[in-house]
C-alpha cells in the first residue's frame, strides 16, 4: 500500500476547501445586517421610552435580540441563516441564543430534567465559563486598579 504520509499529503492537497472569500463576504453581510437590526431595536426602544437611561436601553436591546434569536431557532429558520452566513450569525448574541435553544429543542424528548436542563448548555457551556472567568478577572483587576 501507499506510504501513509504521502496519502495524508494527498488528502490535504486535494480535499475540497471552504470557499473562503464567499464565506467571509456572507458572514460580513449577514453579521452586519443582524447588528443593524440590533441598532434598529435600540433606536425603537429609546424612541418608545424616552425616559429610559441609555444603559437600560442597551440591556433591553440585548433581551429583544436574544428573544428573536431563540424564536427564529424554534421555528427552524436560524439554522438556514447559519448555513449561509456561518460566523456572521454565530458571533452576535442571536447566535448565542441559538446555541442554547437548539440543544434544548433537540433533547426535549429525553424529558425536562435529564433532557432539556442537562443538555441545554452542551454548546454554550464554554462561552458561559469563559465569560464568567473573564468577568471575575476583570472585576479583580478593577478592584486593584
Amino acid at each position, binding site marked *: *500500500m*501507499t506510504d*501513509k*504520509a504521502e*496519502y*495524508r499529503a*494527498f*488528502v490535504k492537497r*486535494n*480535499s*475540497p*476547501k*471552504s*470557499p473562503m472569500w464567499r*464565506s467571509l463576504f456572507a458572514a460580513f453581510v449577514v453579521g452586519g445586517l443582524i447588528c443593524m437590526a440590533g441598532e434598529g431595536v435600540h433606536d425603537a426602544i429609546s424612541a418608545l421610552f424616552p425616559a429610559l437611561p441609555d444603559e437600560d436601553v442597551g440591556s433591553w436591546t440585548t433581551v429583544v435580540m436574544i428573544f428573536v434569536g431563540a424564536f427564529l*431557532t*424554534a421555528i*427552524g429558520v*436560524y*439554522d*438556514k*441563516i*447559519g*448555513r449561509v*452566513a*456561518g460566523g456572521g*450569525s*454565530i458571533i452576535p448574541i442571536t*447566535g448565542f441564543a*441559538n*446555541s442554547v*435553544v*437548539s*440543544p434544548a*429543542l*433537540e*433533547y426535549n*424528548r429525553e424529558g425536562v430534567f435529564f433532557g432539556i436542563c442537562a443538555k441545554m448548555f452542551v*454548546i454554550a457551556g464554554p462561552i458561559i465559563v469563559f465569560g464568567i472567568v473573564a468577568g471575575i478577572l476583570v472585576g479583580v483587576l478593577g478592584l486593584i486598579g
Partner: protein
Amino acid sequence: MRAGRQSFFAEHPIYLRSSYTIVGPKEGDGNFGDRFDTVLPDDLWGERSYEKAESKMHREAVRGAVCLAGCDADGIDVCLAGDLLNEISASGLAMRYFKSPFLGLYNACATFAEAVIVGSALIDCGMARTAACSSSSHFASAERQYRYPLELGNQRTPTSQWTVTGAGCSVLSSVRPTTEDDEECRTHFKEKMKAMRDECMRAASAEDSECGKGGGIENPFAKRGGDALERMKHKLLRTLRPASLIEPDCDLAYRRTHIVKITGGTLGKVTDFGIDDESNMGGAMAPAAADTLIAHLEDTGRTPGYYDAIVTGDLGRFGTEAFCYLLSKEGITLDNHFDCGAGFFKPEQKTFQGGSGAGCVNVVFNGHIAKRMERGELGRVLVIATGALLNKDTPLQKENIPGIAHAFTAESEPYV
C-alpha cells in the same frame, strides 16, 4: 471455503430470497428515488423521536423483506442487524418484534456487508436456512449522535457527507426461490404484512393484559401510561396528515427474471492512515476500501474486469478520488466502479460529498443493484461497504479515524 488470507467462497448456493427498502423524503428526491419500495413523506413517521422513527423503519424493512420472502414471523433462523445509534439501539428495539434469534453487529457504515458475510457463513455451514440481514441509519438521529443539534446554525464543511435516512433488509436463504413463490408473495404482500403485525400484536396484548395493560395500535410495545394522548395524536395525524402514517408498500407488478446468489466475500482489516478530520470520512475510509479490494484480488486471483460492477459503500466524491488515487499507485484502474454515496443525491440537494450511513449501501444494493441483477443487467458484482470507526469522543481525545471495509460478491443466474 477459505481462500487466501482474508477471503472465502461459499460452497453451497446462498440465494438472495428477497430485499426490501424504506427511505425518507430527501432520499426519495435523490437519484434512486423511484427504486425504493417505500418512500416516507415524513421522516418522523408518526413517532415521538427520530430514534424511534429509525427503529420503526428498521422493523418495517425487516417485516417487508420477510413477507416478500414468503416466511412467517418465526420463519427466519437468524436476524443480523446493526445501525449507527449508541449500542445499536434501533436494531435492538426493532428486533423485539420478531421471534427469531438476533445477532447485533456494528461496523459503522460497513454493517450491511458484515451482516451479509456473517449470514452467508451461517447458511453455508448449515447453521441456518434463512438469515435476515438489515441495517438502518437516520439523518436526524446520526446528526445528534455524531455532530450537533439539528437547529444549530453552523456550516457544514465541503468534505462532509449526508447520512442517509433509510433502512433495508435482505433475506438470504439456502432454498432456491421460484417464480410462483415470488408471484404469490407479491400479490398477498398487504395481507401478509397485516397478518404478521396482528400475530405479533396479539402476543403483545396478551402479555400486557396480565398486568392490566393492553397493546397499542401502531406500536405494539407502547406503554399504556399516556396512551390516550398517543392515540389522540395518531387520530389527529390520520385526519390531518394521513401521508405521515403510510403503511409499507411494494410494487405488485415487479417480477424478477434472474436470481441473485451470494458467492463469497473478503473480510476487511482496520486501516489507519492517520486521518483525524471527522468531517472527512471519505478520506479516512478510502484506504480501507483499497486495502480490501487489493486483498480480494490477491486472494481470489481475479482482475477488476471479472466483475460487471465494483460498488463501494459511501466514500463520497472526494473519497472516490482518494480510492482511485490509492489504486492507481498499485497499478489498478477501475472502469466499472460506482460509489453508492457519491451517486445517491442530486447535486442540487446540497449534500456536498453525497450520502453515507449504515443505510446508504444497504438501500442502494437492495433497491438498485440487486434489482438490476434480477433483471439480468449485471452479472457479477463486488460490493465493498466502508465504515469509519469513531465516536463523538475519540477525535476530541486526539485519536485518528480508522476505516474498515468488508466486501461480498454477488452473481446472478437466470430462473430456469
